């Protein structure tokens, strides 16, 4: 592997990792506030991308309003999902909630497939498609948009959580829901806020990445999974940890192709993410068990 190549793997990994990070942020946010893992998170990424294409290509809306509108529609769907499915399952067990979010995920996917069909589509690039050189490594301008958006959102999210009332309330209900209730925070409303924000994050991710990655009704599953891995690496703790997790995953996947190690070819790229996921979960399991025993 030459230095040039190594750099290229890093850059490709970075842009791919930013995508995972964007998806992972939604998981982290919802989990932190509601202790629910939203299996439908990937579907909001899909919705963002598909909607932006449909609004631009079929409805002929100019780019910027179309992008905003797609995010708004996804947010509304996220809110509906929370209010109809999650909130009405009042005393649902964790397992029921898992199943409900899976149900929501395939429902959204099915409707998207029904409405938009199977074909992958590509919304137009934000700005051109002439590669930009970065110390000899080439990067697509749209990939820069993705990386930039990820950074931007992470910073904004961080500021929001630590510097606004709503953000602080959100954080409080994630750290100690009982105490949050005592000081008058409506934790159920916080659940709604978390879902809405996560839907927005997902949709923003979808909107930004779709021109580069193409999108179709079925991209949600794998993106959701990778995003979840990113969030797991970050421990579902903070936006920044999640972003680091996502980028780490992207870079590892990318380098694995370059390394060509043993029997493992690029065909096992997805397996790498999943093995990382299992390893993390098992380490976590050990820690959880130890915590429970109090030793």
């Amino acid at each position, binding site marked *: 592997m030459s230095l040039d190549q190594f750099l290229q793997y890093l850059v490709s990994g970075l842009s791919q990792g930013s995508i995972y990070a964007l998806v992972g942020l939604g998981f982290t946010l919802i989990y932190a506030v509601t202790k629910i*893992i939203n299996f439908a998170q990937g579907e909001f990424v899909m919705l963002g991308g598909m909607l932006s294409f449909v609004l631009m290509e079929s409805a002929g809306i100019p780019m910027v309003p179309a992008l905003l509108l797609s995010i708004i529609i996804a947010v509304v769907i996220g809110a509906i999902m929370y209010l109809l499915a999650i909130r009405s399952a009042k005393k649902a067990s*964790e397992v*029921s909630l898992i199943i409900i979010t899976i149900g929501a995920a395939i429902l959204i996917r099915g409707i998207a497939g029904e409405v938009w069909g199977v074909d992958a589509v590509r919304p137009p690039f934000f700005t051109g498609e002439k590669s930009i050189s970065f110390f000899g490594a080439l990067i697509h301008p749209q990939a820069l948009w993705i990386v930039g958006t990820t950074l931007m959102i992470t910073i904004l999210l961080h500021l929001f959580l630590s510097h606004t009332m709503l953000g602080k309330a959100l954080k409080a209900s994630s750290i100690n829901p009982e105490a949050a209730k005592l000081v008058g925070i409506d934790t159920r409303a916080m659940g709604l806020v978390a879902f809405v924000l996560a839907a927005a994050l997902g949709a923003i991710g979808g909107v930004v990445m779709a021109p580069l990655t193409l999108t179709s009704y079925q991209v949600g599953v794998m993106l959701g999974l990778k995003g979840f891995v990113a969030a797991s690496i970050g421990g579902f703790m903070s936006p920044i940890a999640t972003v680091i997790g996502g980028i780490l995953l992207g870079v590892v996947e990318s380098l694995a192709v370059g390394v060509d190690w043993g029997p493992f070819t690029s065909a*096992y790229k997805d397996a790498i993410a999943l093995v990382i996921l*299992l390893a993390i979960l098992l380490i976590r399991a050990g820690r959880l068990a130890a915590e429970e025993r109090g030793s």
Partner: protein
Amino acid sequence: MLAKASDKWVWIVAGLLLVLLILIPFKWFLGPYTNLMIFIAIYTMVTLGLCLLMGYSGQVSLGQAAFFGIGAYFSAILSKTYGVNPWLAMLLGATATGAFAYVIGIPIFRLRGNYLAMATLGLGIIIYILFRQLGQYTGGPDGMAGIPYLSVGGFAFNTAFRRYFLIWGFCLASLLVSQRIVNSRTGRALRAIHGSEPAAESVGISVSFYKVKIFVLSAVLSSLAGSLYVHHLRFVSPQSFDFLASVVIVVMAAIGGLASIWGAIFGAAAIRILGDEILPRFENLSLLKSWDLDYLNIIVYGLLLIVVMVFMPQGLFVGMRDAFERWRLKHAQREAVT
């Protein structure tokens, strides 16, 4: 069990159902539905495993199709490529799947809830990737065809009619065995775990041991179902064991009801009949001409999952049963009053 007047009726109806089950594959009755019925039996076995797991450990597995697949590929590869007797292959497959579930179950079942769900999901997808990638053994994404039939002596199960009885035999045996286990010491231990883990521990039940045990049982049932599946289809490809396949099993279990043995048949039958017979009719209805079947299936599954879990977290079957009981109770009380 206490002998009540209703027991006699239950036996009569059970007998009638059995007769119906036996008559179904005959050409003059429901012959064309033989294949459908065979799939119902196979999926009942897989669903049963998940129902036991979800109902008794209170945990969900999103990778159940993997065990189904391991059994299927074990049978397919051993019996076709290596010429092993199919029955032996089936046994080896079930043993290997059980051992695998045991080894993986010990660490994995230290997790619960969301994390366990994700871990099983990841595991399922890894195994699916392996099915696709280990092409020299599995035939890769194209799968393998020409897998031999099961046979006893000179009698080959080479028609759907014959396999119908074989596979339903297996299915009913699994249900019976599960029923017995649930009503035994082991079953009580499992129900105790579902009721309260600390309390179960306090009476001497090893929670982690039983969780792994039920996981192994569910894996073995799925593996057997997988073996029957390949000897029925004589074809296997990774597609049948992907993530959506695992989700469909969850749908069946959710419909059938957690912790309900007989609900498994109900769940498997409802979803198979819906997918194979009912929804395809909608596809060609002029009113809904634009409906695409694939998505329609997914939409219906999604709706079912949400609605059932929101309103009847115990499952549609159990929910209906309990609602019926409540109604009967009210009715009986009213009668007693008047």
